[in-house]
């Protein structure tokens, strides 16, 4: 299946990417993205940094417009996954 991944702001700087369509296996979760998918195109080190940032709530993950805090969130074909730097206020 294909999912659309977008890195925003400081996360894009870390990932050195902005947008990418990724071919993934079915049953891909947010966790699999960090551990299996990202290392192959971002490099292991960057993937680990991003994962650590997710754990520390430095990164906000949004799947199809929904805030996601669970590793186990299942992704589906055509999903749009965004990685934002933590921000607040308004």
């Amino acid at each position, binding site marked *: 299946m294909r999912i659309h991944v977008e890195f*925003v702001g400081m996360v894009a700087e870390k990932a050195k990417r902005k947008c990418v369509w990724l071919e993934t296996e079915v049953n891909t979760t947010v966790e699999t993205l960090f551990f299996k998918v990202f290392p192959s195109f971002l490099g292991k080190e960057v993937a680990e940094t991003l994962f650590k940032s997710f754990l520390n709530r430095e990164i906000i993950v949004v799947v199809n417009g929904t805030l996601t805090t669970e590793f186990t969130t299942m992704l589906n074909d055509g999903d749009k996954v*965004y990685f934002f730097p933590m921000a607040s206020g308004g």
Partner: protein
Amino acid sequence: MSKRLYSYAGKILWIDLTANVAKKLDTNYKLARDLIGARGFGAKILWDNLKPEVNPLTPDNILVISIGPLAGTTAQSFSRFFVMFKSPLTGTYFRSVGGGYFGAEMKFAGYDAIVVSGRAKKPTYLWIHDNEVEFRDASNIWGLLTNYSTELLLEETDESARLITIGPAGEKLVKMASIQTDDQRSAARGGGGTVLGSKNLKAIVVKGTKRKVELFDEGLFKETVKEQIEKYRKSPAFENFRSLGTNGIVYLFYTLGHFPTYNFKQLELENVDRFKPETLETYVVKYGGCYGCAMGCWQFMKISKGPFAGHVWDKPEYETYWSLGGALGITNVEAIMYANMLCDLYGVDTISTGSTIAMAYELYEKGILTKRETDGLELNWGDPEPLIELIRKIALKEGIGRILAEGSRKAAELIGRGAEKYAMHIKGLELPAYDPRVAKAHGLSLATSPIGGSHELGWNRYELLGIPEKIDPVSPEGKGLICKEAQDETAFNEAAGGCNFPLSNLMNYDELIAKLLYSATGVGEFKDPKYLWMVGERIFNLERAFNVREKVTRKDDTVPERILVTTYPRTPAKGSLFELDKMLDEYYKARSWDIETGIPTRKKLEELDLKYVADELEQLGCYRPRNISK
């Protein structure tokens, strides 16, 4: 009550503009203990001194500018100034807030609050330097844009003084006129600038020399501030806030579906990529921050191209990218920056101004407003030129601007022909950039806010960003209590004079605020975070009671019809409505208010040591018979 208060300035300055009299009264220990300061002081002073149903634009209205006990200290993000008054836009209690350096300067001059009443015979400004209070002629600055009046006022007084001023819009009694500070910040919402204009008061300039604030326990205070700064630096949001402020959430909140577009008609926006943080940060040329705030979330932007190129101004905030942008289908960042600057110069609130203009755009689209009525302007979605012209027309009350200057509720009434349906306000205050259907506790807070459609009095971090833990934002279940808690927490934070940004990220929190307040003031009760929560609830109830006195009841705690009857069109709330009645029942229950009327019960008010408030509500006949015996 003769106990000593540390860290407070010690005086409240009462200004009677009609009589040209300045009176200084001691800051009372009981007042400080019961309401902490800032927003708490404002709510209490208004309750005690304003009679119900006073016309907000008469000399009888009172405007309170107050700070918290931590202002001017090294406590981080606690030097804001709060402005409370009866709003000409809503007819209710109002609290507006501004950052910058004015709050700290008030402290250094020796004042916890400045209470302004009456009306000056001619344009006037106040020059307050320590104990001296001068009523000065403002005829030469009347009519000037805020940047020019600032420049002249500082020349006439002291270049290192701090000030608040109104622009031409406030002088002309535009209902959404703001109060601007010398450093391009504003206390913008609700028409505080209009109230000052009605009093012929152009500005208040303050300079203080008592720059060392005496603390109760300096050691503990220093240690707590150190802890606070460490917490700031460790926060995931800290660096992002420093680099982009609320510009960092524009694209995020759009993605999360909070950013309504085209006057709340939809949630999609063409070219929204222009609001991505990596794009917005390219305009930043300078950084800054409020007094005593390590977060420093000011960014000044330079308009780099197009017809407005060259201007450098404080950036538009998240809300302004919406009100002068997305709400009108506009994504031209340079035009939004310019429109934002115009609002500051004329002295109008960007949210209410943009939202009222968005209503006009929609009325034009629907054929309710014709080109003849818009002074020949074609109000086409996405076109910033009419926006810029309308800001000027509103501020100077020219042509169609004369009607729009009344704010969306009144303007829609004046236009008629069904225009009311397109006025996106709550209690007369234009809604901010949040769709109530996709974050229900947050939406409920908008509906029940004592100042109308404001996001500031109960920003719900659980729903909006999952901090500290995520709750389902779309479900209406359990939202009454969550909404109440966010409102009470905000109230005590603001009574302490605090900024809500660090609160929303848990950089500041109840235990830390309790330690700061206690070590600074020596008021024993402040040691206990539970006491602070109770004070927050007390303030919120006092504000509600003020509004009950103004005939506000459950019927007013609502959202615009469009939100109530139209389902949300996309994830994560596709098909969802705003379940107002269900959530209101739960909310009033959580607040121990009368479920049918939304009026605080005598029992609740007495629990909060507000018996005198219950007595007055009873005297005014606000209680239904069954409550009288309680």
